[in-house]
């Protein structure tokens, strides 16, 4: 349709945005750069989470588990096998994808809605227990130090070097997920979310798409985990607790469910602001909780819907409205 060609062309201009960001590092000090990098870590995390919750419409609380599995896979492979960081990215993604596949098994058995939520919540806590108990691999509750990373021999010694690698990875996950959601697969997700029975009746192999959606989510979030491992340099089970879950929920709810723009926006807003309050325990939970409550009551489609009101370019095409 001709009417859609113009926004599509306009949308391409957004590819310039990461290019503009390339020039960012000289303007930031060390700490600001760290926060920007953290935002970039949470972009794939939010994108993956939003795919399952927003696009597939499943109440799955297992995202922190995927995140932790990716992070620990990367850390353990570097520490125990001496692999360079770039080589741990695919295994981290694949382990995340396997965990995603495993998390979708109950969904295949007809476990839905609250049941799926309860089950995935238990799964996440079980993983956190494993990080504590598998001491020889993970360092237990003391955590593990992640060796310094490099990309094909180019050491990620400074924050700004990490920034460029992270920017590339975050952009890649956003673009790949965008392609996925615009394809036949994305439309199948939409159909399943709207009415699973009707989707199955139309000949959509719902179970296959379930596994695919969860696995892709796990893959992307696992990559995010590997980025997180390198950024913070130290992994401990506390990083993957329920506060982390509420943070990740805040990212997709505040940003906007089922919206890629929303995931990115959410990552920026939610990750960057509370760093200021990190020294007051409890404050983050309070703020994230309040934000989610307010968003559900007054802005159900999140910040992305505000942006869409400004300019149609921001309107999501993989959500039916």
């Amino acid at each position, binding site marked *: 349709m001709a009417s859609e060609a113009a926004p599509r062309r306009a949308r391409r201009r957004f590819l310039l945005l990461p290019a503009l960001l390339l020039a960012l590092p000289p303007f930031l000090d060390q700490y600001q750069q760290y926060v920007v990098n953290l935002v970039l870590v949470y972009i794939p995390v939010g994108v993956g989470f939003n795919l399952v919750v927003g696009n597939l419409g499943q109440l799955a609380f297992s995202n922190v588990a995927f995140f932790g599995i990716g992070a620990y896979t990367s850390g353990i492979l570097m520490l125990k096998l001496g692999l360079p960081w770039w080589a741990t990215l695919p295994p981290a993604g694949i382990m995340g994808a396997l965990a995603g596949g495993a998390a979708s098994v109950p969904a295949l058995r007809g476990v839905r809605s609250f049941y799926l*939520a*309860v*089950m995935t919540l238990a799964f996440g806590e079980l993983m956190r227990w494993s990080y504590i108990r598998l001491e020889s691999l993970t360092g237990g509750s003391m955590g593990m130090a992640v060796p310094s990373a490099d990309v094909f021999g180019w050491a990620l010694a400074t924050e700004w070097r990490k920034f460029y690698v992270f920017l590339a990875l975050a952009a890649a996950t956003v673009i790949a997920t965008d392609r996925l959601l615009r394809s036949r697969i994305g439309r199948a997700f939409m159909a399943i979310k709207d009415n699973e029975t009707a989707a199955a009746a139309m000949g959509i192999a719902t179970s296959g798409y379930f596994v695919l959606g969860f696995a892709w989510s796990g893959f992307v979030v696992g990559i995010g985990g590997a980025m997180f491992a390198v950024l913070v340099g130290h992994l401990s089970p506390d990083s993957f607790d329920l506060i982390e879950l509420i943070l990740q929920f805040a990212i997709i709810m505040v940003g906007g469910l089922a919206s890629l723009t929303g995931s990115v926006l959410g990552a920026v807003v939610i990750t960057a602001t509370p760093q200021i309050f990190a020294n*007051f325990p409890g404050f983050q939970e309070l703020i994230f909780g309040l*934000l989610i409550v307010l968003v559900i009551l007054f802005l*159900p489609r999140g910040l992305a819907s505000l942006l869409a009101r400004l300019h149609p370019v921001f309107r999501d095409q993989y959500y039916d409205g």
Partner: protein
Amino acid sequence: MLIVLPQLIVGGIATGMLYALIALSMTVVYRATTIVNFGHGDLVMAGAYAIFVFTAGLALPFLPALLLAAGLLFLLGFGLHRLLMQPIMSGPHLSLAMMALAAGNVLRGAARLEWGNETLALARPYAQTSFLLGQTVFTMDDIVTTGAVLLLLLALFCVLHLTPAGKIIQAVFQSQRGAALVGINVNAFHGVMWGTGAALGAIGGALLALTVTLSPDIGVWTLLRAFAAMTLGGFGSLGGAVIGGILLGVMEKLLGFYVSTAFIDITAYVVTILVLLVRPQGLFGRPAARRI
């Protein structure tokens, strides 16, 4: 090894009674409103802190403090439903679950801001003695917990089966629309049930606070165990929640002793996952009919 079996079972039942009470308080809300309250654990936590404030801060005796805490939590539960849940009741499950979870987080964050760095323990209102019956030790903690929960269960049973209010509750449990048609104010009823669930949870929290150190995280801890109890007994079954809770308590003790103490922490998670995979309706639940 077998000689300690009765001891383990006694300890397990006492812990299990607590799980049973909290699982029951969630089931009441679930049956009445078909919402799983993911913030319920934090209401339990709030109840525990409330009774701490009333006994330690205001120097009230235990029982009045307990009643006050239960009353306060009733209001909190009622208010949560009226202000946060009711406006989105017709929305998707996701928003309902997130709303409850987020509200719980607000409570937990507030508790952590206020008491996060302190270790608080509730003073027992009774002497910490124990009795020996054969080879088995019954501690006063076990007896009080079990007795209190049994009393509450009896009271609930009577309310549910012998009073006009119980008839209304059962009517709404059976069919919301049918209840509305015969003139029951379902919305008001939902609010009252949220309040009741929160008040029951507060009593559970008070009993819990007698034996463990208070922390903002006990809410989540109990939530996951209550989920396991509900799942095991069958989601939505009142009796199932109680029996599931007791079974879970006993299982924790047995696994902890005969296999490894490390398993005490994850019994609940493993039970939840296995039951939902193998027999999603649990022991006493009906197979869930999916809404199309």
